[in-house]
């Protein structure tokens, strides 16, 4: 990462109170791509019997990562907001493991950024969830 991008990465989560509250960490930012991880935290449990993280926390992680990818695209001059986001839950995330997401803005117009993302735990071969979403492209 260039100095500029590293700085953006460091500041990105710090500027978003909800992402900070969920302990998210931006680990990589490219030109229309982003990687964010969220360490396991018992406060985010959705199923107390198994200790599996709530789908809502995974949604928040996906939304943040997709938004970061949309914002980092060279053709996106400003901030962004989610228009819609669909999440498919393939399997429960393994309790105790960090969830990592990677998002890619695969197409962008003057008004809309199209983004997809994958969430993984320690087992890279089987995704925990996938997401597809559209985000606004704000005029400067």
């Amino acid at each position, binding site marked *: 990462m260039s100095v500029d991008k590293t700085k953006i990465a460091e500041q990105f989560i710090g*500027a*978003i*109170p*909800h*992402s*900070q*509250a*969920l302990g998210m960490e931006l680990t990589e930012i490219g030109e229309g791509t982003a990687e964010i991880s969220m360490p396991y935290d*018992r*406060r*985010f*449990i*959705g*199923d*107390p*019997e198994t200790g599996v*993280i*709530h*789908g*809502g*926390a995974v*949604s*928040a*992680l*996906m*939304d*943040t990562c997709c*938004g970061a990818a949309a914002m980092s695209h060279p053709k996106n001059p400003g*901030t962004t*907001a*989610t*228009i*819609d*986001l*669909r*999440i*498919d*839950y393939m399997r*429960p995330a393994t309790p105790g493991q960090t969830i990592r997401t990677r998002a890619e803005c695969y197409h962008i117009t003057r008004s809309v950024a199209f983004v997809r993302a994958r969430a993984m735990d320690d087992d890279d071969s089987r995704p925990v969830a996938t997401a597809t979403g559209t985000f606004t492209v704000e005029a400067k």
Partner: protein
Amino acid sequence: MTRPRPEPVQVVKQRRDAALNALIQGVPYIQFLGIEFDRRGDELTAVMPFQDRLIGNPLLPALHGGATAAFLEVTAIIGLSWAMLWDRIESGALDPDELAKGNLPRLPKTIDFTVDYLRSGLPRDAYARAHVARSGRRYASVKVEAWQDNRARPFAQASGHFLMPRANDG
């Protein structure tokens, strides 16, 4: 033929509220977001009181899309679970004391969830209601709508599919 005497209203309310509380209190993430449920008969309204840590864009400020998505998903799962368990709560087949101890029945699992963001979420309390469009033996389809100051101006809506617990899962 005489009708059996209806139960005293306090007994009915106590049983329903105990069951609802057990469903909600047991889930750490619902507590983390501070979501509460207002019950009128079998109708539930989810309430997410505003807190700073729900903010996504501090400049506007606006609720984080992820917080909104999570609020809608919690509302959908609790609404669906509530509809699924209602008959067993009413008949007394589900013991609220057992529920309170954490012996919860298996709950539906999210298969997919799609959120439409209609306008930005203001730094205010948010409300949501779920509508179970279909609840079958294996799958259910649920719609949710969330609003803030005006019921007629929703700020987000969602629809999702859920895998129902198998009957022999308890």
